[in-house]
């Protein structure tokens, strides 16, 4: 058991999140996948902070959480406003703009 385990786990979580963005249609779930990606970044940061013996990683993880919170508020508001009109939270339904 080394720190590499944490890092690889984070990489896998990040990938799963990224793939989730590509395969899920519900905008809110897509957004949750992005949250998963951010979380895996946090795990990476915390692990590197421990490895390097500096606290900067933890502080950055903290910032990531704050930014994520702001992003969530804006994102969910946008998704809600589009839902109120279209009665659908599917990202595939938003495709009037193309080519």
């Amino acid at each position, binding site marked *: 058991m080394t720190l590499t385990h944490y890092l690889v786990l984070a990489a896998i979580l990040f990938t799963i999140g990224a793939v989730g963005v590509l395969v899920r249609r519900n905008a809110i779930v897509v957004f949750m996948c992005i949250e998963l990606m951010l979380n895996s970044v946090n795990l990476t940061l915390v692990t590197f902070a421990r*490895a390097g013996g500096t606290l900067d990683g933890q502080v950055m993880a903290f910032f990531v959480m704050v930014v994520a919170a702001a992003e969530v508020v804006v994102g969910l508001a946008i998704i809600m406003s589009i839902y109120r009109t279209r009665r659908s939270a599917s990202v595939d339904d938003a495709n009037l703009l193309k080519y």
Partner: protein
Amino acid sequence: MNDVVIGTGEAVVFWILGPLALAGALGMVLSRNAVHSALWLINTMLALGVFYVVQEAPFLGAVQIIVYTGAIMILFLFVLMLVGRDTSDSVVETLRGQRVAAILLGIGFAGLVGAGIARATRDLPVAGLDAVQGGDTSNIEAIAQLLFTRYLLAFEVTSALLITAAVGAMVLAHIEREPGTRRTQKELSRARFLTDRPQTLPGPGVHARANSVAAPALLPDGRPAEDSFATGIDPQEVDQMPRPTGRAQLGSPDAALGTLDPAPLDGGRQP
């Protein structure tokens, strides 16, 4: 740099929670129901919170559990409920090749990044955080010190972000009334008793399968009840229970009501 040895206890925690976190991630992507996805994600987040605590970041661990999982994810759930819980994705992929390509790219990305990280950090020395925290300075103090010195500017600028978020939510969600259009309780109740119908308006009908405010109530014959239309929102079409048709079902209760003709769903109010 004196290497910190990773103890057995931590290894046990990792091997229990690691798979759990992974399962949570996979479950989020794979479950069709959005609420289940959210719960799976909460599972992963809790596991990560424990990892933070284990990795000498107790403050972050707490924040992860209290703020991230407790507040942010609940916000997600809240919105999911608003949108309507019945929004499970269909399993059919409509974009050709999307899934295959996504999985292949995912494997490629994980291969590149994961393998790269694994190779690069194979002999990563673990300095540990004893030098900067523990002893006199606790984790929170150490973080605070950094936050208000090295990261002061970022800290201040984050406020702009939070203001933006608040303003944004207000803009998109808050419907302002024109001044003077607000009626008092007294005026409202007087107005109601002047109508033919002083009792409460109908809720969603028994045949409706949605609980959104946009779904009107249904009258027994299947027409939407106009009284139940929400103000300001165009009524939504409502899925109905399958209605009996054909000779074989003539004996059903519907037949007794004499409404065998398929009733128009729109009730004459098709937008």
